[in-house]
């Protein structure tokens, strides 16, 4: 009897261990990277010296256009997400300065989630089940602090060409513009689906075509609600205009490295199918290693493009070599 029980117990232990270690067969869920089975870099592999050199030709006037929003209290965030800094300034107290030269100093403790403000979605941000970019079964590569694969440290430097498409202009030209009264400047309304044809129409407006290694930036006007923080935070977060599945698939075919927008998710919300969750993120990040840039400030570059009839620029973006992070806030400059 005891022997029978032991056998049963052993079977139970074996069965439960099997369940605990069960992994999805990621080869059936996510396509392989075109850069090989060990690739953790994804689409930024396309930023070659030749691509960077060609992009440098966009610097013609030396004008730097900011493309990031300020990261500060009161900007739109969801739920319990936060970004908070604490200033250490003890040496400013009377008598606390150092040496005869009376040196004082200050520094910050920054407590923040990484996907806040203008930020980059890394390759470890989005998966299907436990399968992430390049068929990586991510359940095996995480600990309580970070990821041990697909971290930001693997991304190549963003020194490439940026291309802006003004979706407000596109939708107005097509006679299908529908705005939102909360925007102080023209914006597409939430739920507006941007298709591949819409993007192509926008490229055609400035007589530009996408090339391998580009970063595509979409101006929807929705970012105006971010600029009004905190007054319009709820409206900003309630949805957004953005690309749909058709556009996402078309962009994958263009071999770009990232797509950004003045919205919090780049893709249309509410989505096209109410039973799908952030499907464009899956198409771009999980399947193609293409980064998503959220809350990008686009109005200044859109105005420049409109003024000069040129929608291309040198795209410079700082991504810290933060080991094992899924994303981070970034500084973006468009240089022309």
């Amino acid at each position, binding site marked *: 009897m005891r022997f029978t029980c032991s056998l049963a117990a052993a079977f139970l232990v074996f069965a439960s261990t099997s369940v605990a270690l069960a992994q999805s067969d990621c080869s059936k869920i996510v396509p392989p990277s075109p850069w090989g089975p060990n690739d953790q870099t994804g689409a930024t592999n396309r930023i070659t010296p030749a691509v960077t050199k060609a992009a440098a030709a966009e610097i013609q006037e030396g004008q730097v256009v900011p493309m990031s929003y300020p990261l500060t209290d009161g900007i739109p965030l*969801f*739920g*319990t997400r936060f970004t908070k800094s604490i200033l250490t300034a003890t040496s400013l107290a009377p008598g606390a300065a150092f040496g005869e030269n009376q040196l004082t100093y200050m520094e910050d403790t920054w407590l923040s989630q990484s*996907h806040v403000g203008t930020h980059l979605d890394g390759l470890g941000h989005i998966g299907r089940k436990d399968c992430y970019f390049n068929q990586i079964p991510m359940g095996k590569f995480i600990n309580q602090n970070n990821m041990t694969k697909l971290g930001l440290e693997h991304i190549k430097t963003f020194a490439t060409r940026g291309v802006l498409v003004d979706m407000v202009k596109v939708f107005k030209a097509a006679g299908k513009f529908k705005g939102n009264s909360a925007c102080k400047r023209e914006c597409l309304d939430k*739920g507006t*689906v941007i298709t591949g*044809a819409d993007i192509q129409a926008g490229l*055609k407006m400035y007589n530009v075509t996408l090339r391998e290694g580009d970063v595509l930036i979409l101006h929807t006007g929705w970012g105006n609600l971010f600029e009004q923080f905190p007054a319009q935070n709820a409206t900003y*977060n309630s949805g957004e205009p953005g690309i749909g599945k058709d556009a996402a698939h078309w962009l994958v075919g263009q071999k770009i490295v990232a797509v950004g927008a003045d919205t*919090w*998710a780049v893709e249309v*919300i*509410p*989505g*096209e199918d*109410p*039973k*799908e*969750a*952030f499907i464009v993120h899956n198409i771009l990040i999980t399947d193609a290693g293409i980064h998503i840039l*959220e809350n990008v400030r686009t109005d200044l570059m859109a105005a420049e493009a409109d003024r000069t009839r040129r929608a291309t620029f040198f795209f410079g973006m700082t991504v810290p070599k933060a080991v094992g992070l899924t994303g981070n806030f970034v500084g973006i400059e468009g240089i022309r």
Partner: protein
Amino acid sequence: MLTAVTPPAPPRGRRRFAFAPALLALLAASASVGLTASDALERRYTIAFANLTDEPGVTLEGTGFTGREVRDSFVLAARLLPVDLVLYDNRRDPRTALANAADAIRRKVDLYIQYHHDATTNAEVGVRLHAANIPVLAITFPVPDAPLYTADNRAAGRIAGEALGEFGARAWRNQPLLAIIVGNVGARDDRVPERVQGAVDGLKRQHPAIRVVTVDSQGNPARVGELIGRLVASQPGKKLLIAALDDASALAAKSALEAAGRLSDGAIVSHGADRSIHGGVSERKEIDPSNRGSIVIGSVAFYLDRYGYDVLPLAVRMLRGEPIPPRTVTRHKLITAANVFVEYPPYDMN
């Protein structure tokens, strides 16, 4: 709201073939202006949707969904279809409903979707639109000779009853059980009695002899707490299988059990699955993956916030001359902590 009405769809069969040279010419012309073949061939339809009411806060069909949510579902669903919507608000008012139909006839819409509770008005709307050669599709309340899309209250009730019955059989075997049905039990216009009957049928599948008590809130969920509290106090030692007829009643019933110190004696299944009972990652509503121990086992989804996704494709099929069934029903499903984020993916993360 209304874009230019396009010419009628090409007829099917032989006559479509006869149009082929014209289509080829159109394709050639469109290619020269950068349009794709699908752009050129796409026939757009102007479809009118006359909502029961757009009034904020007014809930429909004995659920917590509002007319605004129904209307928004049509706007969202139309994005994916060759449809230009004309939106009307029937305001639950027969005269307004007739005026809306008259306006749609003047606009020569391709199809009219009627969502209105008054049978006499619906009959008149049907006659007028038929005379104008405009097909009609009805929601919930029939229009004579028009296809109907509707919730299946009986089926929904059965799902709730079966879920409760199975829970009782699994968790409280050989313990005294009492079934309670609570909500606006007599709301015939909203077909709630069918929901009640379905719930009873479902409960009796596992427990043929179970005693079922109905608690009528008369449409006021604020009364549920008091009524359930009194009933629970009179039933010490009983395990309570509670079919709430709407989500507000479910939450009120749960509070009543909590106040009576009887949470562990109750299990609740609700109807509707509206936003009062589930939500986003940050909202932590009653039905949430992080709240798997709740006595609210689940809520049977009525999907009024997705009516547009079900109804508009039916309308387009009608306009394309394809057959559709005379009655199409909502595919109800029990939403629980285990599947809520699959059925209603949250988007409050970035």
